C-alpha cells in the first residue's frame, strides 16, 4: 500500500512537471518573455480572473479587443462596469498583442450606457505575472487602512490580474467629508495597493449604501502611464476629479 502510494505520488509529480514545462514553454513562445494567460482560451481565462458578472464577454478581432459589460444605470454602476471592462480589455490586449481596446456597457435591456475605445499603452506591469498578494492580504490591508481614514471596508472583490488587485467598497463615517478630500483619502486607503502601476477601483458609498464616488485606474491602456476613471454623485464635491470641482463656479 505504501509502495502504491509512493508510485502514485511519483506519477502525479511527473505529470505536474510535464504540465508546468508545457505551460512555461508556451508562455515563452507566445509572450516573448512575458507571462501569458493560462489557457488555450485567453478570453475565458481573463473573465475567470475578473470573476464578476459585470463583464459578460470579451474577444479579439484583428488588433482590437472588444469587451462587453453590463450595468444597471448610467452613473456609478456604469462607471464601475466600465472599469471592469477596461481591466479585462487591457489584460487581453497584452496577451494578444492588440493595439486598441473597445468597451461597451449596456443595461439589462441592451440599451447603451457607455462606449469607449482607447489605444493600448506599451509598458506597464504584466497582466498575467504572479500575484504577490492574496485576496486575504488585500482585504486585511484595505480594512486597516479604511479605519485609518474613517471608513469601513464593506467588500473587497479580488482580481488575479496585474499582480493581484481589487475593487474596494468603503463606507465612511462622514461620506461627503470623505469624498471632499477624496484624493488624499483614497490615496491613503489604497496604500501600496496602487504601487507600481497596479490597477484599482474604489467605490465610496453613503450611509444608505448608495455610491457617491467611484475612482479607478488601469495600466497598459490609454496613456503611457495608464488610464484613470472617476465619477461623483451630483451632491458630492470631490477633489479627486480634475475639472469637476465646484460645479456652480465652473461657468457663469
Amino acid at each position, binding site marked *: 500500500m505504501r509502495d502504491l502510494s509512493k508510485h502514485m505520488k511519483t506519477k502525479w509529480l511527473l505529470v505536474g512537471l510535464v504540465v508546468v514545462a508545457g505551460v512555461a514553454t508556451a508562455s515563452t513562445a507566445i509572450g516573448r518573455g512575458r507571462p501569458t494567460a493560462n489557457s488555450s482560451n485567453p478570453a475565458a481565462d481573463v473573465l475567470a480572473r475578473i470573476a464578476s458578472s459585470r463583464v459578460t464577454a470579451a474577444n479579439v478581432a484583428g488588433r482590437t479587443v472588444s469587451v462587453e459589460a453590463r450595468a444597471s444605470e*448610467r452613473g456609478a454602476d*456604469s*462607471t464601475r462596469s*466600465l472599469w471592469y471592462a477596461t481591466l479585462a480589455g487591457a489584460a487581453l490586449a497584452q496577451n494578444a498583442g492588440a493595439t486598441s481596446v473597445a468597451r461597451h456597457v449596456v443595461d439589462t435591456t441592451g440599451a447603451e450606457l*457607455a462606449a*469607449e475605445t*482607447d*489605444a493600448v499603452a506599451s509598458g506597464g506591469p504584466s497582466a498575467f505575472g504572479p500575484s504577490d498578494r492574496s485576496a486575504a492580504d488585500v482585504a486585511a490591508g484595505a480594512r486597516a487602512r479604511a479605519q485609518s481614514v474613517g471608513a469601513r471596508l464593506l467588500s473587497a472583490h479580488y482580481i488575479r490580474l496585474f499582480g493581484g488587485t481589487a475593487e474596494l467598497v468603503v463606507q465612511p463615517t462622514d461620506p461627503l467629508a470623505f469624498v*471632499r*478630500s*477624496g*484624493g*488624499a483619502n*483614497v*490615496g*491613503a486607503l*489604497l496604500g501600496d495597493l*496602487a*504601487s507600481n502601476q497596479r490597477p*484599482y477601483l*474604489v467605490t465610496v458609498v453613503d450611509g444608505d449604501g448608495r455610491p457617491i464616488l*467611484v*475612482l479607478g*485606474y488601469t495600466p497598459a491602456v*490609454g*496613456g*503611457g*502611464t*495608464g*488610464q*484613470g*476613471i*472617476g*465619477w461623483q454623485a451630483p451632491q458630492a*464635491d*470631490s*477633489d*479627486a*476629479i*480634475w*475639472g*469637476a*470641482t*465646484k460645479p456652480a*463656479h*465652473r*461657468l*457663469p
Partner: protein
Amino acid sequence: MLRSILAMAFVVAAVAAPSALANQGGKFRGSGSDAGSRANITGSASVPSNGGAIATVRVQNTAATGLFQFGHLKQGSSYASDCGGGGTIGYMVERRAAGGSYLCNAFFGVFGLNHKFSTLHVSGSGWNAYIDGSKIDGPYALGFTSGQAFAVGEYNGGAPSSYSMTYGPSGGTPWQYTIDRTNWITINSATNFNEGGWIITSLPSPFSISR
C-alpha cells in the same frame, strides 16, 4: 445694526473663502462654438504629497457638462485622482462625454516643460489631443462637437506651495481657438474665473496663472 454687519461679514467671508481642497482659476472665451483650444504652456509648481496641480487648455460644453482638456499634470505621492494614483507626473488628456464618467489618460513627461498643447474636434471623428502638433490621443466622440475655450490652472487636495504657469510664452503659440477647425485665432479678450487665490494676468498672451 451690529447683527446686520456681522451677518453681512459672514456672507462675504463665506463667498470669498477659497477652498483648501479644490480650486480652479483661469480664462474662458465665452463663445460656446469653439472646436479647439491651444497654447504653449510652461512653468513650475510644487505640490504636497496629498495634492496635485494641472495647467491645461480645455474645451467645455456647459449645457451637456462635457469637457476635453490637455496639459501638464503633477500629483503628490499619496494623492489619487481620476488620472491615477500617487506620483503621476507628466501630461493628462481628460475627457467626459456628456453626463458620463471622467476618463483621464496620463502620459510620461516633464511637468512645466514648454510644449504646445492642442485640443481639436475633427469633424466625423471626434476630439483629439496634440503635443507640439503631433497627435498623442484621440479621437473620442463625446456627444458634443464644440464648446467654450478655456485656459485653466487647478489644484486639488493640499494647496501647492508655489504655482506659476505661463500661457503663450514668447516664441510659442499664444492662447488660441478655432471654430472652423482649420484657422486658429489668437484670443485677445476673455473672462477670468477665480475660485480663490489665483493671480491671473491680462491678455494678450503671454499671460500667467499663478498663486
